[in-house]
């Protein structure tokens, strides 16, 4: 097993420039042209410029960086999680260790089982869930909606992030209220703002917006919704329609 891993790593090292190039091109295009003008207004000569966003990050072992004390227990946590999951270790699609934070990207089908392990396994013991945050990436085809959870272990004083995704066409994610009751309102909020359906939630209703509100206001395809403000005959447009610098 280990020799296979090593060989893979060697091959990847040999093809590093190619791999980096692939990743670069896989990143979504955020903007074209120099000034973001869509008409012929761009005379800068940079009309064909393509500014790319960031490619999905994928960290390799070891996750612990000896120079960074924040990452001290990353390898231990990853090992323990792998051991605790056993056969289900495939549930973790990729691991990201960046900026002193450890992120596990998890398939949504396996989320509930994974958080149960996170809470109950003695070597992990993430007792506290600090809620779920929805994030909407309209350009990330097939994984538009992200649900981001942060867990904190008071026993081991450790903190991790778990991310799961679902497509816009099928916005279903399992609810983890049965494991972490504190997520009740957090999941209702994510449903309210992003339209994420948490299967198994006891009462998934709107929480912040009025019950009869249409749409999920914090998605990227929902306008900021400002109405123009009139002031002595002049009109102040809503912020998303004012001129902005990109």
């Amino acid at each position, binding site marked *: 097993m280990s020799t296979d891993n090593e060989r893979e790593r060697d091959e990847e090292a040999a093809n590093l420039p190619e791999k980096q190039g692939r990743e670069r091109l896989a990143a979504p295009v955020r903007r074209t042209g120099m000034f973001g003008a869509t008409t012929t207004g761009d005379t800068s000569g940079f009309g064909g410029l393509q500014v790319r966003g960031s490619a999905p990050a994928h960290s390799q072992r070891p996750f612990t960086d000896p120079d960074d004390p924040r990452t001290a227990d990353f390898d231990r946590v990853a090992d323990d999680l792998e051991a605790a999951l056993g056969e289900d270790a495939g549930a973790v699609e990729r691991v990201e260790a960046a900026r002193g934070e450890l992120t596990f990207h998890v398939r949504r089908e396996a989320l509930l089982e994974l958080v149960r392990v996170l809470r109950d396994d003695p070597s992990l013991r993430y007792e*506290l*869930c600090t*809620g779920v945050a929805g994030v909407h990436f309209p350009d990330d085809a097939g994984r538009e909606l992200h649900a*981001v959870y*942060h867990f904190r272990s008071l026993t081991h004083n450790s903190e991790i992030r778990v991310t799961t995704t679902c497509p816009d066409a099928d916005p279903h994610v399992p609810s983890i209220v049965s494991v972490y*009751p504190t997520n009740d309102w957090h999941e209702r909020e994510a449903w309210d703002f992003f339209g994420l359906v948490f299967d198994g939630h006891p009462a998934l209703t709107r929480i912040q917006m009025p019950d009869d509100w249409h749409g999920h206001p914090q998605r990227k395809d929902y306008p900021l919704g400002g109405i123009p403000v009139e002031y002595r005959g002049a009109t102040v447009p809503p912020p998303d329609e004012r001129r902005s*610098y*990109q």
Partner: protein
Amino acid sequence: MTVTEDYIDASGGDWDDVIEKAQATSAERLVVNMGPQHPSTHGVLRLILTLDGETCTEARVGIGYLHTGIEKNLEYRTWTQGTTFVTRMDYLTPLFNETAYCLAVENLLDITDRVPERANVIRVMMMELNRMASHFVAMATFGMELGATTVMTNGFREREMILDIFELVTGLRMNHAYIRPGGVSQDLPPGTVGKVRELLKEMPKRIGTMRKLLDENPVYLARTRDVAHLSLSGCMALGITGPLLRASGLAWDLRKAKPYCGYEDYEFDVPVSDGGDVYARYRVRMAEMEESLKIVEQCLDRLRPGPVMIKDAKIGWPAKLALGPDGLGNSPDHIAHIMSGSMEALIHHFKLVTEGFRVPAGQAYAAVESAKGELGCYAVSDGGTRPYRVHFRDPSFTHLQAVAAMCEGGTVADVIAAVASIDPVMGGVDR
């Protein structure tokens, strides 16, 4: 207790209908709607209570009456302008909101270690003063909701002292936008240290007065002892942190567990109580204020001259602010420099102020121990000059879920004490 199937709905509508129904049926249960506009609900909180006589059998909470869309608004502003918005979330702990947000942005920029020492000391000092101000309002509103007006007037009087310092340092009594990514917006003005020392001398007396008034007060004890009990396991399941968790017996404090802004260098204790009731929460808050005084004192001793904003010209605000005849603005030196000295400096100033700095793509979560509990900020950047998404994990929002656990089975009068002991601030709950 016998619970009948029928109930009388008194949550809106005509009183005549309610009376008619009460006379016609033998229903004992009454559904009462309390709030969102009610003097004892700490702002625009709505409680839907099912009462069986005096006993509250079901307590449900309705929120969202102060939803402001701040998280969405942030996405249309630069990273620096973000502090102006987040400070208005939980308006009693503005400096904690700003710090949580700035720590997340600094982590994204990878400049956490390069924030100047003096800026960190100022941040800690301001946060601890803010903790005291917030706890004073918690006591004051608690007193007011129980009908003790003296507690309310005293609490607000004490808070006023702290606000004077805030006004001196930031220019505003509330909603400061003082802490910025990379440091703080400006240095302490002359006279601050003296004023804080005055406060340090006066405040222990004021806290002593408050303790004398409440610690052994029989009326207060009767309203708070063994009321709204919440055990440690209940706290953990409901994700409760801060003074509520410490009043249930666990000495968990992010300032000790995951120090930020140099908290590891300060000496202070984490007050704990194992009462788990309203009175224990009061005692913990009181003791925390005394610890905050200790930290503020150490901050004054640690203040060394130096910059308060990161050296990196790509992030730090280019201007030095100075007080002119028309209020606070760019210093005359800086204006002379950009208007007649250096064209590049002018361009740089213009770009940084209008466009803002770029933040590398990625995500970061920063948590601080606010006066109410763990205040977390999750920030996502797509590499641009504006946040892609910012989400706040507000402690008040999480804690309000405990209302059902605290109130059901108690009397309706204890509901008020329970909600007030959570110290929710609706601006933070609804954001």
